[in-house]
């Protein structure tokens, strides 16, 4: 059918249709509807991407935000207990019950939130009143000292067991939403139709005579194993005599009789007229600290139980104030000292290199917390964290966190003066109990989820327990309870930057130079093979690269380190040498070999240079690094001269070149013009050799001069060698980002319009001149963007650094040391971080930091790239 016929046919059809009925010219409803729906759907879908980006950011922020947020007081209850001199407080694990022990041995168990009395009883004090008290950190084992110089031990124990809801006794009286009271027990609702029964039990043991005079200060610790506990205690009596005692209980298996043997040794006498206020003892019983009202702390070294010695005496406060309260933070690494001037300082027992006491230690004031307005009267420390609560004589009750040096919550007890009150921070750090001798009881329940983190703690230096000075440290977890988490992101950010910098040092030269060569100097067909190959490498799983890096490359580099370092010199040298030799070729031969053959010669040159480096490696090591590279990096042998010489070599070369060209440049060139190519090449070769010699002389002089001035590169970018190090990471991660940089830079270069290229070539410029003065400057912003995007990839790369970087969060630029990046840190720690905890949120903050870093880098790169593209199109 011809077109004409078709048209006619159509026409007749249409006429017929019109004849039959009036044709509906409108579009069908369903089509319109589909069109509209698709339009909406697609627009919504398109905008979803924006929401995805914003959503990720918002979510990360939302999770990380509570880190900086404070806490809140959930409730405050006041109640009255019998007016008695309170000596000890304890509460159960679940913040349900409290027990107050008075100096006459009577105790009362009360419900914390309501103050409702649950039970009461009497410890066997033999009618005496306690004059001193000491207890373990968990507060369930207590020792009381008496007027007659005797000691009694008591256990104040909360027993918890879980029952089914159906076991709840009838007639239980509801106290609050969770708890019910029945008999002398509290029943708390648990999820899953269960209840927890809590009861209190107290036991007193027979008195042990220790001193002749009334005991004024007492410290008590229980060490050893659960089966064979070692109870140690220190007493100071009214005559100022200090005694260290150790009680070992043995259970006779035959008679099941418990015998306690107490051994006591006298501490060296304190200076006369010393009024002891408090004593402290470590669980191992190797250190005794005695505080006096003159503001002095006496530290006794009791590692030899039979011969304790006075190691050190310090004055706690500069103004000589009395030490009114003193307590170990949990872990017994840090001593909190409160003064009558309201100051609250923390001392660490460190072993400094200088100024140590005879036993090698020294008490150092590490932290000065915000002072109270009046004398500190009581300190209660947390059993699980570095939180504590302090009370001052003016009625202030402050909940603090020692590591992050902040006052979390401030309670003012209605301006009332504190009268002999006892203070207790609940085991879960979710409440404070205060009972005054008047019987006034206060209970504050609070929620402060992340006391460890402040802006200062995350990004600033903190003086952690056991450290000699404030540091940036990341150490998020450890096996023990008494561990102080260290959440400084600085080492991780530093590690990220270090890895990025070293990998860019490798990747940028190879990626960019290779891209320029591909775009400007190779045949289209070579380019069509090379580029897809490099692009395929871009999607190479980094886990594979990391595996090769860590298990194959790292050991090789370690064995052949000298050869590897030599390769950095041999490669450029070999290429230069080959280039100058190439210039010696007659013009015709050179032209004939141009293109692919020349490229193969380049390959050969590289292989040859690597082979030379491999063979000369040991000689290089003995010549430059005194035959032992590892020992050299440690700083054990030799000087820094040879290394600096190597570093200065390229610098020296460029300086020499600049100088020579300044003076002889034009003359040399003019002379060259008169020669044939081979002769000119020979001249150029000589010039290069001369420059090289000059460079050697220059850099040797510079290196020797610097060594003479006492400068040594070791300790900075070169230091002790570790197998998984930044050199390997830089090399391998560089390898992983080369394709990105290469591909994007090549895109930028080849999108410079061809007419620009043609114009330059037509004006007589050589391809090299065209590339150098026309193409690269035009594409410069695109090339820069390529580097930025490569950098973005390096910043976020995880698997390679995780496997090859050793993951040590250290702050040094040493190329032979490991590092830990933000990304590797997240990968290692997030699976183990409990949801919602400080650690979890800190890792989200690390993720957010990464996100922000890459977002910034990418946005800048993208803007540059867009601008470049606009410019390239305008050309």
């Amino acid at each position, binding site marked *: 059918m011809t077109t004409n016929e078709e048209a006619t046919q159509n026409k007749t059809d249409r006429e017929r249709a019109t004849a039959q009925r009036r044709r509906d010219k409108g579009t069908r409803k369903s089509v319109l509807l589909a069109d509209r729906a698709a339009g909406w759907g697609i627009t919504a879908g398109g905008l979803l991407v924006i929401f995805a980006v914003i959503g990720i950011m918002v979510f990360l922020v939302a999770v990380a935000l509570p880190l900086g947020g404070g806490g809140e007081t959930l409730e405050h209850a006041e109640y009255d207990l019998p007016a008695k001199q309170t000596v000890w407080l304890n509460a159960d694990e679940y913040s349900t019950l409290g027990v107050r022990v008075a100096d006459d041995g009577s105790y009362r168990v009360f419900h914390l939130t309501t103050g409702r009395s649950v039970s009461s009883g009497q410890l066997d004090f033999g009618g005496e009143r306690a004059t001193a008290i000491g207890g373990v950190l968990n507060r369930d084992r207590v020792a009381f000292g008496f007027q007659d110089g005797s000691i009694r031990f008591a256990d104040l124990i909360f027993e918890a067991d879980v029952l089914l809801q159906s076991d709840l006794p009838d007639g239980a009286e509801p106290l609050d939403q969770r708890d019910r009271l029945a008999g002398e027990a509290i029943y708390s609702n648990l999820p899953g139709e269960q209840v927890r029964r809590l009861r209190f039990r107290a036991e007193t043991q027979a008195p042990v005579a220790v001193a002749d005079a009334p005991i004024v200060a007492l410290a008590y610790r229980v060490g050893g194993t659960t089966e064979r506990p070692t109870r140690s205690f220190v007493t100071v009596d009214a005559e100022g005599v200090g005694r260290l005692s150790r009680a070992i209980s043995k259970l006779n298996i035959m008679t099941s009789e418990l015998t306690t043997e107490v051994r006591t040794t006298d501490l060296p006498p304190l200076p006369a007229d010393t009024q002891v206020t408090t004593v402290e003892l470590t669980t191992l019983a190797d250190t005794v600290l005695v505080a006096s009202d003159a503001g002095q702390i006496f530290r006794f070294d009791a590692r030899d139980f039979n011969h304790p010695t006075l190691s050190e005496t310090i004055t706690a406060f500069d103004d000589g104030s009395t030490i009114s309260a003193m307590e170990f933070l949990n872990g017994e690494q840090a001593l909190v000292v409160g003064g009558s001037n309201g100051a609250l300082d923390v001392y660490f027992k460190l072993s400094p290199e200088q100024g140590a006491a005879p036993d090698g230690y020294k008490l150092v004031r590490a932290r000065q917390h915000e002072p109270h307005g009046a004398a500190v009267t009581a300190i209660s420390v947390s059993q699980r964290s570095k939180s504590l609560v302090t009370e001052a004589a003016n009625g202030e009750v402050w909940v603090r966190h020692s590591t992050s040096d902040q006052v979390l919550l401030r309670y003012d007890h209605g301006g009332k003066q504190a009268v002999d009150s006892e203070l207790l921070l609940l085991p879960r750090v979710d409440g404070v109990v205060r009972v005054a001798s008047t019987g006034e009881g206060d209970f504050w329940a609070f929620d402060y989820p992340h006391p460890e983190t402040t802006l200062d703690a995350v990004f600033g230096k903190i003086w952690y327990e056991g450290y000699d000075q404030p540091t940036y440290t990341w150490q998020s977890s450890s096996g023990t309870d008494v561990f102080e988490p260290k959440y400084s992101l600085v080492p991780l950010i530093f590690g990220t930057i270090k890895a990025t910098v070293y990998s860019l040092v490798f990747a940028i030269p190879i990626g960019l130079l290779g891209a320029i060569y591909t775009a400007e100097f190779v045949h289209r067909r070579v380019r069509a093979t090379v580029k897809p190959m490099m692009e395929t490498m871009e999607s190479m799983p*980094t886990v594979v690269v990391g595996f090769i890096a860590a298990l194959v490359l790292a050991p090789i580099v370690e064995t052949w380190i000298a050869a590897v370092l030599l390769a950095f010199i041999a490669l450029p040298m070999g290429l230069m040498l*080959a280039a100058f030799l190439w210039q010696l070729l007659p013009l015709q031969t050179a032209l004939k070999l141009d293109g692919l053959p020349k490229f193969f010669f380049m390959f050969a040159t590289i292989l040859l240079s690597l082979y030379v480096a491999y063979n000369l490696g040991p000689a290089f090591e003995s010549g430059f690094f005194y035959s032992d590279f590892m020992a050299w990096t440690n700083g054990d042998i030799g000087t820094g001269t040879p290394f600096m010489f190597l570093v200065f070599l390229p610098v020296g070369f460029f300086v020499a070149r600049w100088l020579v060209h300044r003076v002889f440049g034009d003359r040399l060139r003019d002379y060259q*013009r008169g020669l044939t190519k081979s002769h000119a090449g020979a001249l150029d070769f000589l010039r290069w050799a001369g420059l090289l010699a000059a460079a050697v002389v220059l850099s040797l002089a510079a290196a020797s001069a610097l060594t003479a001035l006492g400068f040594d590169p070791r300790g900075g970018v070169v230091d002790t060698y570790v197998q998984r190090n930044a050199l390997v990471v830089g090399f391998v991660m560089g390898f992983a980002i080369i394709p990105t940089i290469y591909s994007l830079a090549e895109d930028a270069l080849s999108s410079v319009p061809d007419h620009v290229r043609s114009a330059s070539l037509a004006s007589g*410029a050589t391809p*090299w001149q065209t590339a150098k003065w026309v193409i690269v400057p035009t594409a410069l912003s695109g090339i820069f963007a390529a580097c930025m995007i490569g950098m973005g990839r390096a910043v976020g790369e995880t698997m390679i650094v995780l496997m090859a970087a050793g993951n040590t969060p250290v702050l040094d630029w040493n190329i032979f040391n490991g590092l830990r990046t933000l990304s590797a840190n997240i990968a290692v720690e997030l699976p183990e971080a409990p949801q919602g905890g400080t650690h979890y949120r800190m890792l989200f903050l690390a993720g957010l930091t990464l996100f922000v870093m890459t977002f910034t880098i990418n946005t800048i790169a993208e803007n540059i790239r867009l601008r470049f593209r606009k410019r390239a199109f305008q050309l």
Partner: protein
Amino acid sequence: MSTNTETTSNHAEPKPGMNAASRRYTTDLTATGEPFLWGLGGALALGILLVVGFLVLIFWNGIATFWPKPIEVVTLNSGTVVAGEPTRDNVFKPGDGLLERLTEQDREIIDSNVGFAHRVLYRTGNYDLYNEDFRWVSDFEIAKVETPPGMYLFERQEWGVFIGRIAGLVLDGESRNLSDYDRAAIQEQQEAARERFEEIRHIERDEIGEVNYYMEQARLDLKRVALDHGRDSGEYRQAERETEQQITELQREYEQLAARAEAIKETDRRYRITLEEIGGEQKELPLSEIVRFYPANDLSPFGKAAVYFSRWGEFLTSEPREANTEGGVLPAIFGTVAMTLIMVVFVAPLGVITALYLREYAKQGRLVSIVRISVNNLAGVPSIVYGVFGLGFFAYTLGGGIDALFYPERLPSPTFGTGGILWASLTLALLTVPVVIVASEEALSAVPRSMREGSLACGASTWQTLRRVVLPRAMPGIMTGLILAMARGAGEVAPLMLVGVVKLAPELPVDGFFPYVHLERSFMHLGFHIFDVGFQSRNSEAGKPMVYVTTMLLLALIVLMNASAIYIRNRLKKRFAGSAF
């Protein structure tokens, strides 16, 4: 243009007064920039060399791993005899202490090699006897090396390989004379024993596993009733009765199965083999414990090839053993493929729709540039950040919500509220969506304007034009994008470590139990397998061959996907290419 070029061209001009006919071509080597060209070319060559070297390293090691090596028996100077497969060799620097103990002659050799000595790593196996799998033997220690016949390599179900000889055989409870049984006969027995082993495993894992599954289901159903109606309700009591009955039934079934397994085990115990290592120490074990054995030094090339392919077969079709360092990677292959496919289901619509929006719907303006910036940022966000987001948002927030709504009876152990294949796929979909967007956009823009206009002129609506004209034409390009996204997704490991990849997943995400596809389950992944075996196993040296093969497999998968994508792209370019300068 800079002044320098101008000077150069000035110089090139003939000097005034010179005859134009006798113009001389001058040499200016700075213009050619030969050293610089070599620098540029050298960089490219180095880059290519690195890439090629990298691929060769992996493929060579991957391909060679399963080829049976000879077993060398090395007699040391000290009289000790070591038998093992030479695995690799290297040179090392002996420490001063070691050097002192050497003979003068050895020291001279080392000195002539500038302080380096050569050594070979032997895979000695017999971990249960030696407490190590590998042993370095330095050249100066060796008295003689032989490859005697009759040395066998046994791959065992547990304890890794055994290298030694066969010292005894017990068949059906009777000790047999070894001379009556040649290798083929023993092999036949071993294969029969292996079949018994497989059957025991089938009963214990699959059939008893099924019974356990139904028991657990019954308990969960009961718990559900308790949650819905309370423990005191009539429904609960009835359900309790039913459940009890069901469980008793299942228990009976279980006992039957266990008895059947025990019977086979009883038979199995009567077939045993005694192995003897080179030092003469013997070890008796059930024949079924031996997965594969061959006389390493007596094999013909065909025999070696048979072992080689049998190992590949095991690798591709079975489950890992020995803490993933031996056996196969089938679950990992399955997990990788399943996750990638689920990912595509999510990423395809999202990516294509966004591309459609950018190309066909949006008016170029501020909004579009914001979308573009977002796309580029999505592409630039580190993969681990997606993992963090995936864990926090998908697993904990979304998954936690799903658990609270639909699976309250399983709490507090999470169902969807922890990492799983669904969340991993979603996370990776987010990660790879930019790839699809960019590729789809390219494909859409390659559709000539005239085709759209033609369609619109015929009266088609925008959507009709898109659906009938533009999309079909752009489809190959979009497919390219999807394949690239799959390649990217299949190679990502870091985010998966947070959202559901595990070292060993006993249950695949697809099985015979309703609803057959379990998207909440954690899974194994080839990339993570590499990390795990290479870095977290007992002996990374023992796992190395496995890592190489797995790496090769993963790499082959990804290179294949990329190559096909590039192939499609190039073909399209040719087909649609206009005139280019």
